[in-house]
């Protein structure tokens, strides 16, 4: 791996020939902690293209989650612009941000974040429910996705009746249910043993082969080797961003 950690934040990436699905321009995120201003993100310029499969790495506290939250429209930048599918979402009102999250983004969290009182199939349906899809349709889609992640037999189980790996697969199915433009995963395998973890990563690989755009935060250097593109953050800045060649 050449140049590791030395590329500047403005390092050019070799873009595929299409419009970016995500573009960050001069994004910063500041937190006021008493008298001091914490700059969690600084001068972030980033383009992500359809079909990208990206690992984000970096030491704890370097701003990975902060960046992913902004990419996921859960949070808004303090400074800078964020274009998602060509639309500036950095200053959208709350309701429209919800709309964007529900329509274009899929989330996978470290701690699965399933809703305990809902069954597997109902959890997968949640994003569709907020899109106003009738239950009959959404139930069909959810059952289909559950089958795809290998849980076709467990539609009516509660999250507490599933293993961690199974729960994470439900979460993946849920992230896919609204057919999002981008899937965001924050340490999706962080709570799993290596076997379940690599199962999850295999699903990610398949999804990317199907043309999905995936961005995942990871602490595992080994995993970075799986993805064609790697971004390293350091102290809130992009220290390294490149495509491995040849792409897998």
């Amino acid at each position, binding site marked *: 791996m050449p140049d590791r950690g030395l590329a500047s934040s403005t390092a050019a990436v070799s873009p595929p020939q299409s419009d970016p699905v995500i573009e960050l321009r001069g994004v910063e995120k500041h937190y006021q902690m008493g008298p001091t201003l914490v700059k969690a993100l600084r001068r972030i310029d980033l383009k992500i293209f359809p079909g990208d499969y990206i690992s984000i790495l970096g030491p704890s506290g370097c701003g990975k989650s902060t960046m992913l939250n902004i990419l*996921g429209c*859960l*949070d808004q930048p303090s400074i800078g612009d964020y274009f998602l599918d060509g639309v500036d979402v950095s200053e959208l009102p709350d309701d429209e941000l919800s709309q964007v*999250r529900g329509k274009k983004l899929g*989330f996978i*969290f470290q701690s699965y*974040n*399933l809703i305990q009182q809902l069954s597997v199939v109902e959890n997968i349906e949640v994003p569709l429910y907020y899109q106003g899809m009738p239950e009959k349709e959404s139930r069909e889609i959810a059952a289909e996705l559950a089958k795809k992640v290998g849980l076709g037999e467990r539609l009516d189980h509660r999250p507490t009746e599933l293993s961690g790996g199974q729960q994470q697969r439900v979460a993946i199915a849920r992230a896919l249910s*609204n057919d999002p433009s981008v899937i965001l995963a924050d340490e999706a395998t962080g709570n799993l043993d290596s076997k379940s973890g690599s199962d999850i990563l295999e699903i990610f690989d398949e999804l990317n082969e199907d043309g999905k755009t995936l961005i995942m935060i990871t602490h595992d250097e080994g995993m970075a080797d799986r993805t064609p593109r790697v971004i390293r953050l350091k102290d809130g800045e992009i220290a390294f961003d490149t495509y491995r060649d040849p792409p897998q």
Partner: protein
Amino acid sequence: MNLSAIRELSLFRLKRAITLGIKSLWMHKLRSFLTALGIVFGVASVIAMLAIGEGASYEAQQQIKDLGSQNIILESVKPTNTTTAGEQERSLILEYGLTYRDIAQIQATVPGVEVTIPSRKVKDFLWNVSNSVDGVALGTVSWFPTMKNRELVRGRFFTEMEMKGRSPVCVLTESLARNLFPLDEPIGQTVRMKNSYFRVVGVIEDDSAIAAAAESELEGGGDSSEGMEMMIPISTLEDHFGEVLFKYRSGSFEAEKVEFHEVTARIEQPEQVMPAALAIQHILETNHDEVDYKMTVPLDLLQRAERTKQIFNIVLGSIAAISLLVGGIGIMNIMLATVTERTREIGIRRALGAKKKDIVFQFLIETVILSGAGGLLGVGVGIAIPLAVTHFADMVTVIQFWAPTIAFTISVMIGILFGIYPAVRAADMNPVEALRHE
């Protein structure tokens, strides 16, 4: 999108939101049940207290209404201050009560007096051949049933012609008819009092106040002649029994002269009743040295009863409001705890596309389900209590149809009122922080 499609969509959302709410509440069955209990008791106590109160005043009001709200009832009362005078007058004729003069003056001078219904009583045994009952011959006028709201059960009342002709006809009260003629049809039969015979032409229903009193003290002593009335024309009574009544009691004779035992004055317009009562009071005070009469104004009693009921309702309303308020605060308290406990769920939902108003709606629905279910249960308990009271304590209770409806509506409104704050708090949480919540 047209309007009906939107309505359909929101209806389907409502249905799913309710299902979801029930699922979430079901996760903590005991907690949900205990929370709803506050509303259950609030609503139940409102309905039960209303029904019992309404029943009590209904009975009283019914009796007053039966007396006739446009009537003023005057009764002769034996004066009480006869302790010393009684010694001397033991063998003399005791004269007291309402007189022809009183009635003539009332009819002539009091505005609004339509008719009067005088009556005189003679107490003695009533005979059907060898069957006898301790009863009363009540001399009155032919318009007695209409003015007194008393229905004829069989036959007819005596007519004005019979009254003028001083005919020996009589109408029996139901209880008397039952006692004198337990097996036969009374109409056409003959009843004897002293040496006079009267032909039965009809049977009239019992006085409701007496009937109620008899029912409430089933085995109570009381006067056995109460309600055992034989009604005859007042002229006939005079012909047969004279003006002076003799009674043999505890070893000595008592002679009484009472011109009228009871006179009911019927007033034309309801608003004339109270002034007429004052005028009559004035006439009687001037004509009588001692108070040997009693005046009852049903309208006055009715108004008083209604005022009492109003006060009762206000007290009841306050108790109900407080208990529902307490129930509502209980719900709000639990919902606030629930919102904190489910912070992460809120974060997840927001990340998956829920708008603030979706979250508000979700928690509001849950509170309304809680309070609505509590309200329904409360309606059930609230209806059961008065039924049980009627069954076991033998008291009249009246459940008015609006009481459960209103109580339930209020419980739902309490849910909305006390659910808004927790729901808005849930929706206002920052999604990132909510997702980080442990």
